[in-house]
C-alpha cells in the first residue's frame, strides 16, 4: 500500500518537475536543488530565444503561417503560445489601419532557427531534470567534491 502510494508520489513529482521545467526554462533543475545548472540553463536559453526574436522580430513565432517551426518553439515555454496569438492578432498603426507582423528572408530564417533550437534545447533540459529527479539526484550528489574543491581554493 505504502509502496503504491510512494510510487504515485514519485510519478507526480516527476510530472511537476517536467511541467515547471517547461513553464520556466531551468526551473526544473532549481526544484531539485541543482541551482547552478538552473541558472546556466535559464540565462543561456533565454538569451538565445530573445536573440532569435531580436534578429527576426516576434513574427518568427506564428502558429498559423509557420506551424512546423512553432512546434519546437513552443517547447521553450507555454508563453510562446501567447506570443503567437499576439503576433497573429496583428496591430493597429497611427492611422487606425490594421497591420500584420511580417518577416521574410534571411533574418526570418535565423530567428526561426535560434528560437526553434532554444525550444529543442529546453526539451533536453526537461528530460535532464526529470531523469535527475527520477534518480534522486540533487545537491547531495557531488557535495564531497564541491567541499574538496572549496578546500583547495
Amino acid at each position: 500500500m505504502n509502496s503504491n502510494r510512494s510510487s504515485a508520489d514519485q510519478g507526480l513529482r516527476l510530472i511537476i518537475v517536467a511541467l515547471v521545467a517547461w513553464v520556466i526554462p531551468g526551473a526544473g533543475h532549481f526544484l531539485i536543488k541543482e541551482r547552478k545548472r538552473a541558472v546556466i540553463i535559464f540565462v543561456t536559453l533565454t538569451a538565445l530565444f530573445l536573440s532569435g526574436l531580436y534578429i527576426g522580430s516576434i513574427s518568427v513565432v506564428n502558429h498559423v503561417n509557420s506551424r512546423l517551426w512553432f512546434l519546437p518553439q513552443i517547447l521553450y515555454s507555454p508563453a510562446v503560445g501567447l506570443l503567437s496569438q499576439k503576433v497573429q492578432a496583428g496591430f493597429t498603426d497611427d492611422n487606425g489601419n490594421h497591420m500584420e507582423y511580417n518577416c521574410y528572408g534571411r533574418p526570418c530564417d535565423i530567428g526561426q532557427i535560434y528560437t526553434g533550437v532554444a525550444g529543442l534545447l529546453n526539451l533536453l533540459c526537461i528530460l535532464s531534470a526529470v531523469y535527475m529527479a527520477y534518480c534522486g539526484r540533487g545537491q547531495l550528489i557531488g557535495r564531497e567534491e564541491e567541499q574538496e574543491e572549496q578546500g583547495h581554493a
Partner: protein
Amino acid sequence: MHDFSPILAAFTAPLNVQTDWVSMLYMFPLLAAITIIYKATKMRVLFWKQLAVESVVLFLAVSGFMIGAVIVLNLITWLITS
C-alpha cells in the same frame, strides 16, 4: 516610470541581414548556446571553471570541424565548376 517602448519596438522589426558570408557568423552564438547547455546537462558535478573549459573546448572543436567542412565543400565546388 521607465519607458520600455524603444526596447519593445526593437522586437517588432527584423534586423537587416544580407545573404553574404557575414550572415554565416550567426551560427557561432547558436553553437555557443548548444555547447553550454550540452555540457551543463552532461556534467555529473558542476564546477564553473570546468564547465567553462569544457564548453570552450567543445565549441572550438565543433567550430573547427564546420569551418573545415566549409573549406572542403568549397574546394570540391571550385574543382567541379572550374
